[in-house]
């Protein structure tokens, strides 16, 4: 079976939760949601998933479909905050801007005192990033998103955790985009090109990135979905192909 770019991205998103065990996976968009559900159905069966409202739910369910009735436990917002403090969570957030050290911005564009555009506010990004693992999903990799310096540090990057306190539980695991996978496996926590998706070149990625990326001489290709993964994605987890809206073929 031939995989689409959206399917490669879904598997790359699933991979961020590999090894996490019995924690809450909190995806914030369609392809990461597909990835988290895929991870639980395959290599990470103990992951907890919420219905996006206030219940932990069991069993697989399709994107765009109502969550299954099989409720495991109650998780109102207050319990989510408690879970954040406990560290037993790995969130995959979006980013209006992200920089070379993994600082993320979802608050506003321009000067905070009088922004040219106001976005959501920092939401839970400051607390998430210093309490438990965080990954990011960028469906449209561009120099507008990948900037030299973010306007308002919401999610905290590696150059902002010099204080031991902020570093203690800080981990930016990975950034998955429509073009590639990035990580921070460098001595100073600078962003590194970990793999390019099939059909994408290193030059494509660098051209869409507003700062020089660290990379090895040979950048590997992101792994393809297995046939089992493709069947799960197409038949069970996203039969309506909503993934193609976020990452067009």
């Amino acid at each position, binding site marked *: 079976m031939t995989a689409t770019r959206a399917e490669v991205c879904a598997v790359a998103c699933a991979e961020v939760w590999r090894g996490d065990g019995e924690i809450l996976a909190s995806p914030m968009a369609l392809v990461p949601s597909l990835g988290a559900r895929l991870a639980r159905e395959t290599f990470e069966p103990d992951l907890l998933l919420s219905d996006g*409202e*206030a*219940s932990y739910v069991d069993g697989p369910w399709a994107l765009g479909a109502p969550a299954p009735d099989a409720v495991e436990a109650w998780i*109102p*917002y*207050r319990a989510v*905050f408690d879970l*954040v*403090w406990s560290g037993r969570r790995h969130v995959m957030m979006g980013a209006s801007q992200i920089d070379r050290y993994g600082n993320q911005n979802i*608050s*506003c564009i321009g000067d*905070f*005192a*009088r*922004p*040219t*555009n*106001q*976005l*959501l*506010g*920092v*939401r*839970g*990004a*400051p*607390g998430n*990033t*210093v*309490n438990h693992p965080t990954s990011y999903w960028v469906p449209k990799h561009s120099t507008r998103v990948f900037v030299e310096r973010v306007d*308002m*540090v*919401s*999610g*905290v990057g590696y150059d*902002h*955790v010099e*204080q*031991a*306190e*902020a570093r*203690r*539980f*800080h981990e930016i695991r990975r950034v998955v985009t429509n073009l590639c996978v990035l990580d921070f496996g460098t001595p100073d926590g600078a962003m590194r090109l970990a793999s390019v998706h099939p059909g994408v070149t290193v030059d494509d990625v660098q051209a869409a990135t507003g700062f020089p990326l660290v990379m090895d001489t040979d950048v590997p290709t992101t792994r393809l979905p297995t046939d089992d993964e493709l069947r799960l994605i197409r038949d069970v987890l996203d039969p309506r192909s909503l993934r193609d809206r976020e990452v067009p073929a």
Partner: protein
Amino acid sequence: MADKRMTEEQVVAELRSGMTIGIGGWGSRRKPMSLVRAILRSDLDDLTIVSYGGPDVGLLCAAGKVRRLVYGFVSLDSIPLEPHFQAARKAGSIEVTEYDEGMVQWGLYAAAARLPFLPTRAGLGSDVQRVNPELKTVTSPYDGEELLAVPALHLDAALVHLNRADARGNAAFLGPDLYFDDLFCAAATKAYLSCERIVPTGQLGELTRTRIARWMVAGVIEAPNGAHFTSCVPDYDRDEQFQKEYATAAKDPALWAAFRSTYLDVADEAAYQAAVAKRAAA
């Protein structure tokens, strides 16, 4: 036994310009909108608003009622960005204290527990510290760890909307999440609680859902459909069509003038509900 029933107008008469007012709910969910609308009709201004923000924040900003806003986010949920809040920020017309969501909870909790602050890691290293230079850190006396000290968020008044209440202020949420409504009430000098229906105490329902006790509450307002157009599950879902009309109008001065005259510049909450009913029938 105290009967705390009152009207929206009586609540507004107890509020003063310059007060700090906390508003319960979350985004565009279970907001005390009938009380917000009563503030819009009043002369109150110069308010400091504390909120997990939704259209409550947008409407108060658009009406020029807000001096300072304390928030972690402002969103309409199904419409991610709140247009009136965006406009107020771009115009620089409000002062802001932007916190991590957990910091807002901690500030309310500190106020409710009569503590000057509560420590947390949330906010450390982020620009929340840069844009709120009044924030201080505190060193743990046990292991020397430096933590952010979130100052208590004392509220002069809290406004919340629950599904059921009795006339004394005991109240139950029937939907999926209480959000932080009990903390808003406990952090306030006076809390005003609107509800879909006032019932006898014995009919509040499941005990574990009766999370607001009467000691937290100064006034109870019966406001059927009072959270409109935000959701108040299971009594009703968000009025998505109306919210879309609101958000569209908010971006266009002529449309906004029409929206105001139809829904906001009306005599009272009953007139608002009549206009909403007329729209639904059309």
